[in-house]
């Protein structure tokens, strides 16, 4: 099966642009996964974690606060307002990203159960990296 093209854009620039095997998105109606050649769809995303399964099978997690996704036959474009990628070469880089992610979570005002899940998710993602 071919890979899908994924673009994640924030107002401050690109956060991810490349190929992926699959991507899991926090839709308003619940989490959903997208593989290559998914049928077209546009929907809103709520605060949560985007999981990208990359070509080398590793998983990258990106925390977002709000977004909209546009899927078509060719590629997946995700527009988000605020995003932090949980990645880094060293332990301290990951810790820094984790702090930034927590800051983003704090900035989301409404009390949503999704946020609690997101907090747990990014922590476990960070654990896997270390």
């Amino acid at each position: 099966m071919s890979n899908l093209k994924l673009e994640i854009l924030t107002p401050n620039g690109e956060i991810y642009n490349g190929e992926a095997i699959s991507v899991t998105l926090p839709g308003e109606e619940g989490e959903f996964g997208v593989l290559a050649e998914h049928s077209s769809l546009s929907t809103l995303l709520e605060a949560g974690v985007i999981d990208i399964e990359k070509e080398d099978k590793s998983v990258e997690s990106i925390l977002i606060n709000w977004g909209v996704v546009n899927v078509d036959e060719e590629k997946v474009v995700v527009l988000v307002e605020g995003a932090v990628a949980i990645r880094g070469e060293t332990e301290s880089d990951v810790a820094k990203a984790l702090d930034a992610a927590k800051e983003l979570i704090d900035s989301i005002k409404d009390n949503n159960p999704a946020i609690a899940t997101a907090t747990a998710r990014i922590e476990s993602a960070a654990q896997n990296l270390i």
Partner: protein
Amino acid sequence: MANLKDIQRQIKSVSNTQKTTRAMKLVSTAKLRRAEELAKRSRQYAAKMNQVIAEIAGRIKCNKIGGIDNRCFTEIENPKTVDIVFVTADKGLCGGFNIQTIKAIKKLLAEYKEKNVKVRLRGIGKKGVEFFKYNEVELFDSVIDLSSKPDKERADGFIETSIEDFKDGKIDGLHIIYNGFKNMMTQELHVNTVLPVDTDQFECGDETKSILEIEAQDDEKMLDSLVNRYVQYAMYYALIDSVAAEHSARMQAMDTATNNAKDMVKSLNVQFNKARQAAITTELIEIISGVESMK
């Protein structure tokens, strides 16, 4: 022949002005670099956002999604009131930057007046606001210090009124006018129709494969939320693009001013030398004729 001292004073004053304009140019160059970087990073997002909105609008227009009756996506035949939001700089000394924007606003105002459409003018930036106040054109509301320091939250708050009023049917259109950054040398004037979303450019039929797959009851909610973000971002992007353009315009204006001052000093120097030479000649003649008369 002008007085030697007068010319000297003038040379001094012009070279002082030159120093000031050169400093201002340097300041603008530094600020431009930062503003341009910010605008560049946002450009891609803004473009993609427009694309997503245009696609949805196009699908609605071509009736691919049935039963959606959202005001933001329907063309309004006879608008009664429209909002014009303009962005100008807070400061002058930037060439024709503000005047260009003001001219475009005046043109649009005249067009709407002809059609008997009421216009609510909402201003951002001291220069534009002052211009319309001086010319006794009524402003619906205005903010002064937002255009020099773009702030997402304040921009959101400002444009919120227009979005709400549009949804409530109090206004039938929203334009954002600003002078945007094209490259270091040129600015580009933008007159954007933000609401209702422009669907003219979208041809029916080229997206036949795509179908918007969303639950019927969520349509309205999703579109509402999306349109809010879209308009808010369009506003914010107009602000940051305008700041970048303002600095590039000022940089250019100050560069021209520095060059003009340089030319002026040059011609004043020539004048000064001529006057000095004339003074020396007169003095010599006086001495010689004095000596002659004593013989």
